[in-house]
């Protein structure tokens, strides 16, 4: 066992796939930053709002006014550094830090694929993605290498595999498989999509895509890994992500995934891409010999680090088992678990502030404190409700309300079920603490969803 691990760690392979992945990743991230900026989302999401929702323990990470643009500029520049392989370690480190900072500023914008990018960004810091086809290798010929350990490429494949496989596991629940929810809500109105649109009014179509989606997610990592099925798998990747890109407003994610899966292809395939790039951009390349990159601090640290990193990736999505109650309702352990496009949840939350001395009551107009987007996210997620309630406490205290008590009248509808009360009616939210313990102030879900 030990010797097979050792021999695996010493297996070498071409550095081309890693170089191509670096170029694709840098390119997509640079494009993503420019797109985000051009759409005016920096202003809309991080400058305009007065209040930001924090992840537990990260409430010190906030937008910094107009300087927030600087964080995005830094992120874009470091993405360019990754793309070119220029001062790669620093670029990758800065990219990971700035991108993760951006994601931590307001959890309203939480997306699984942003989390995915943070994780890959972190991994990239430690991978020798700049030893081949990079400015670093041109500047400092001594670091240029033709070969890298196989595990460096496999670690990215494993990360991608985890994303797909866990997204598939998450779909193994009774709402998804037996009620075809939420696709039965999302698809029928999409009747103008070419070819498929006319079929979306049929229930069997919702089942076909629900089951197809689950089987796709669970099997695609293996189909990509096996050489004989790789092209079929890639065709499926293009088809499924193409379909979701047409159906749902999910931005760049489908394209990032389609291009990322290219890493599963053979070194020869990637050599062709790089040859094409060299010819197209008139880049002169030089022969690097057959030397292999070696970890600077020895193999041991890398083995430990990777084991811890992937161990966390494998365990974290199951942390919801630590909580009682329905995961989709309580959302305890929902994020960072590849539950992608999994549920349809809508809600409304109306807060009442009571002056603890005079007994005077005020109904809060949420639009005074939150953006439409924030209000929408807040209404269906208990950790948002509590943070917002605590913010309101401060606001109303500063307006002269003494010993405020805050109650919320809230309703949530999950996957087409009739809306029911969400937060318990008579709970004074000022007395509730924001922590990671089970939230018994959320009502119990009045139905049962079976599944993982």
């Amino acid at each position, binding site marked *: 066992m030990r010797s097979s691990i050792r021999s695996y760690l010493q297996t070498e392979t071409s550095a081309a796939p890693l170089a191509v992945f670096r170029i694709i990743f840098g390119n997509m991230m640079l494009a993503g930053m420019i797109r985000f900026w051009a759409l005016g989302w920096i202003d809309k999401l991080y400058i305009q709002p007065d209040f930001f929702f924090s992840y537990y323990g990260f409430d010190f990470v906030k937008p910094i006014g107009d300087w927030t643009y600087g964080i995005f500029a830094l992120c874009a520049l470091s993405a360019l550094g990754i793309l070119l392989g220029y001062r790669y370690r620093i670029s990758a480190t800065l990219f990971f830090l700035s991108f993760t900072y951006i994601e931590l500023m307001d959890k309203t914008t939480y997306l699984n694929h942003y989390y995915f990018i943070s994780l890959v960004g972190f991994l990239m810091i430690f991978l020798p993605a700049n030893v081949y086809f990079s400015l670093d290798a041109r500047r400092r010929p001594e670091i240029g290498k033709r070969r890298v350990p196989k595990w460096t490429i496999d670690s990215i494949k494993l990360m991608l595999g985890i994303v797909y496989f866990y997204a598939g596991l998450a779909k193994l629940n009774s709402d998804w498989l037996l009620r075809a929810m939420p696709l039965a809500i999302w698809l029928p*109105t999409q009747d103008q999509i070419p070819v498929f649109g006319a079929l979306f009014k049929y229930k069997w179509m919702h089942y076909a895509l629900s089951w197809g989606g689950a089987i796709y997610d669970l099997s695609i990592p293996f189909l990509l890994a096996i050489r004989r099925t790789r092209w079929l798998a890639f065709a499926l990747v293009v088809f499924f992500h193409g379909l979701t890109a047409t159906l749902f407003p999910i931005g760049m994610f489908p394209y990032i995934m389609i291009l990322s899966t290219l890493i599963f292809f053979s070194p020869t395939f990637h050599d062709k891409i790089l040859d094409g790039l060299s010819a197209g951009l008139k880049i002169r390349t030089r022969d690097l010999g057959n030397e292999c990159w070696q970890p600077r601090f020895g193999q041991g640290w890398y083995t430990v680090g990777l084991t811890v990193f992937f161990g966390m990736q494998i365990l974290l999505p199951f942390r919801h088992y630590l909580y009682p109650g329905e995961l989709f309702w309580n959302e305890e352990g929902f994020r960072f678990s590849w539950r992608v496009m999994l549920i*349809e949840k809508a809600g*409304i939350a109306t807060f009442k502030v009571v002056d603890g001395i005079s007994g005077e009551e005020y109904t809060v107009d949420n639009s005074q404190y939150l953006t439409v987007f924030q209000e929408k996210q807040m209404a269906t997620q208990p950790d948002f409700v509590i943070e917002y309630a605590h913010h309101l406490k401060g606001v109303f205290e500063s307006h002269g309300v003494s010993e405020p008590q805050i109650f919320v009248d809230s309703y949530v509808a999950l996957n087409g079920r009739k809306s029911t009360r969400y937060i318990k009616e008579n709970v004074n939210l000022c007395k509730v603490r924001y922590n990671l313990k089970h939230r018994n102030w959320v009502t119990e879900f009045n139905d049962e969803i079976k599944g993982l």
Partner: protein
Amino acid sequence: MRQQFVILFVGIAIISSVLSGCKDDQVSEPNGDGFDRGAMLENWADSLIIPGYSDYVLTLEELNQTAIAFTTDPSVEGLLGMRNVFVKAYLNWQNVSMFEIGKAESIGLRDYTNTFPTSSEDIVRFITSGSYDLELASTRMAQGFPAIEYLLYGLEEEDEVAATRFENGSNESKLLVSYCSRILDLTKEVLNDWNSGYRDDFVQNNGSGGNSSVNKLMNDFMFYFERSIRAGKVGIPAGVFSSTPLPDKVEGFYSRTHSRALLLAALDRVVRFYNGMHHQGEGYGPGVDDYLNFLQSISGAEQLSSEINHQIAVAVEQAELLSEDLSSQIVSDNVAMLKLYDELQKCVVLMKVDMFQAMNIKVDFVDADGD
């Protein structure tokens, strides 16, 4: 390499044959006809929105002529006649207020027409100085129906005295005429737009994305219901958002007797819009209720459409119990007013949570990515 391409093409061939093979099954499925959103948009445009604006413009023209006639030769009878036409026009406004889409949205028709409470200080300043620019956004709270109402009902206690304020050439008379023609001009601009191309754009934009007519109008409708009806007409004056009731913030405050009628007219329009009913009479075409029924018959969710109608009816019943002057209702028995607010809030929950989910409506202005 050749073998890989063969696998790729076989894969694509299997997928496409499965998909095309499925197409032939249509007959055996229920609801095979689908739902024609374009027909619903056509029904709204041709039978509710455009006729509503046309009628409203007619009463605004009458309001203008009456204002000119009255200020040329002011009298108590003239003032009473002016008030009658004013009330008629104000009620007609409730028929179109919710359709803040297209031109109405871009010029901000609702804010210029019906921002209340109006600023009596600004109006008095306009009268004293005789100068004002009603196109300035800052004057929105000193024009429109609430401002006209202040001129007609709020300047003087006695009708005899009030009538004399509008003597030919007086600043009051000029302001009254400016107010009336301002609303008419803005509204004509909106109606002309519907009649010269926007109607077709509206009907043809029959998709379901964020910028489709259905998605936009449903958001506008919900905004109107929450902000203008639930909060503006009921919640704010009843003191829901403040420490004490604010009876002087009702719509139609100065005329004293029309605030309930204005509210009921607005609710009637909600019912008509929701059920696809025509501008007048009992005729109807496809509406929100039919679209909901269609979508929920597919998804197998609990039917909502009649529950929403029922809840709106409960709210209307509660509104009918109130005094015709809502400000005196608030002073004498605010509990009934708060009860109405609660019933309207139940409508909001049903529509904004359950109905929006069932109809897959994307909430306004949220154009960030999802996952």
